[in-house]
């Protein structure tokens, strides 16, 4: 049954409210449309439209520095997201089973990289790497970049898993043990599947953050490794090449497509849930 009653108190927004939101959306999207539009511009100008071309898309794949930066970004994002998800899952389960006296301070430390300004995290990590590097004879590079990304990713994974753990029935693991599981088996057969949505969510967040990060990479990657955001930053200081626009357009459209798919799936699941609730009401 659809609830068709109209609340007298909670009115839907009027024309004024809706045009206001529309304006804000325009503000948010205008720069993006400009970027996309100028990825098809036939000259390097970023404000004068001179004609349509796909040249930038073609030359994008031939530009080795952009493509290298892209691959670096992708590899760092994939590895750091996977490592952070695994580490974060174990960490979250561990934190959850601790007493509050221990859990609270540890969660505060966990939250530091999220709350702190990126530049502070980046600077402090670079000091650590430089100092350790002098002792252990290594320099800033791919390794330190990866370590930094894992470090700032784990807190988000932990944070996306904790609520799922809190929702778990306290007796769930007892029930599994009761039915014949050892503790480790119960962990794999019950806890992990039960918190899987949180784990996946954490993985996606970690991957995205890693792809998007500039500031922390900038301080921890050293001079020889470049991620895509670093490449873009370097270019903005000279003149940006429209290939970047092209690459961003491709990435943006990929994300858009992904989000649409996820959204459709979620709303289907929700419908299923609503049907279930209806049948439960009987």
């Amino acid at each position: 049954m659809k609830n068709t009653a109209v609340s007298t108190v909670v009115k839907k927004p009027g024309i004024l409210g809706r045009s206001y939101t529309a304006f804000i959306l325009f503000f948010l999207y205008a720069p993006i449309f400009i970027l996309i539009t100028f990825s098809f511009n036939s000259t390097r100008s970023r404000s004068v439209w001179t004609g349509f071309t796909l040249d930038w898309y073609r030359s994008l794949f031939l530009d080795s520095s952009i493509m290298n930066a892209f691959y670096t970004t992708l590899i760092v994002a994939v590895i750091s997201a996977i490592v952070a998800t695994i580490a974060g899952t174990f960490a979250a389960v561990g934190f959850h089973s601790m007493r509050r006296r221990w859990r609270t301070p540890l969660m505060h430390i966990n939250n530091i990289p999220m709350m702190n300004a990126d530049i502070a995290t980046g600077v402090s990590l670079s000091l650590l790497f430089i100092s350790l590097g002098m002792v252990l004879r290594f320099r800033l590079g791919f390794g330190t970049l990866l370590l930094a990304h894992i470090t700032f990713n784990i807190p988000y994974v932990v944070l996306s898993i904790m609520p799922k753990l809190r929702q778990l029935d306290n007796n769930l693991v007892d029930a599994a043990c009761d039915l014949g599981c050892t503790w480790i088996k119960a962990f794999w057969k019950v806890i992990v599947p039960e918190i899987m949505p949180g784990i996946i969510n954490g993985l996606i967040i970690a991957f995205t953050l890693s792809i998007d990060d500039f500031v922390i990479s900038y301080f921890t990657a050293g001079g020889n490794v470049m991620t895509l955001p670093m490449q873009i930053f370097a270019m903005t200081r000279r003149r940006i090449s429209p290939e970047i626009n092209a690459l961003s357009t491709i990435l943006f459209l990929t994300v858009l497509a992904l989000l649409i798919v996820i959204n459709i799936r979620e709303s289907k699941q929700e419908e299923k849930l609503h049907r279930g609730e209806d049948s439960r009401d009987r």
Partner: protein
Amino acid sequence: MKPKYFSIPYIVWMGIFVVAPIFFVVVYAFTTADGYPTLQNFAAMSRFTPVFIRSFLLAFISTVICILIGYPVAYILSREGKRVQRLMIMLIVLPMWMNFLLRTYAWMSILENTGLLNRFLAFLGLPALNIINTPTAVVIGMVYNFLPFMILPVYSVIVKIDRSLFEAAQDLGANNFSVFRKVVFPMSLPGVLSGIMMVFVPAVSTFVITQLLGGGMVMMLGDLIEMQFLGTAYNPQLGSAIALVMMFIVIVFMYFVNRFGQSDEKAVGA
């Protein structure tokens, strides 16, 4: 094997990569390049007072603008139907998936003197505006980049307010505006607070937006720190000291914001 030991590897990791780096910042801030203890780095900071003031002022202005613009958006959204809400939230999140350097770069092409905005103004026969490389451009860039971080937390708090509370308030004689003033607004304050946190901290420490839209004319703390580590003024000891002071001021600021929020919540008996 107890499950709580599962977190030991990460606790060690945090020790090395979260706690130790902060320790290094502190040590650097209090030593000279030769490794002797000193307070000189902090003394040297006084000549950057204008930068401190500018940073906190611009970040403050941006945060206020974000609240003024973002709060109504969150409130209006919360009153839409479920489907519209979901779509709109997606639309607000989506721009964040485009690299923020690029989005900021796009603003360069809008705001620069021969950019799209001035071309549009000229088309309307209006005089050109000189915005690029001014604090105004920096504020625009900050608001643009961080606005979603204000809308989302406020929205997520407002939608969770039980609608029967509105009805109860109205039943007790409140009109629409006082329902908002007495119920919605006080109850949404925690969302505003986390919004402030999520906008203010990156705003005060940015160096990308200032370099792109400020053109090096609007120097902020982020630029100052970046210069000490990777720039021409290489001096990590001074940079650490500046970073430390910045973190300290931010923590104090946040503490007072939170205190203010809490006392306010108590006042309405939440």
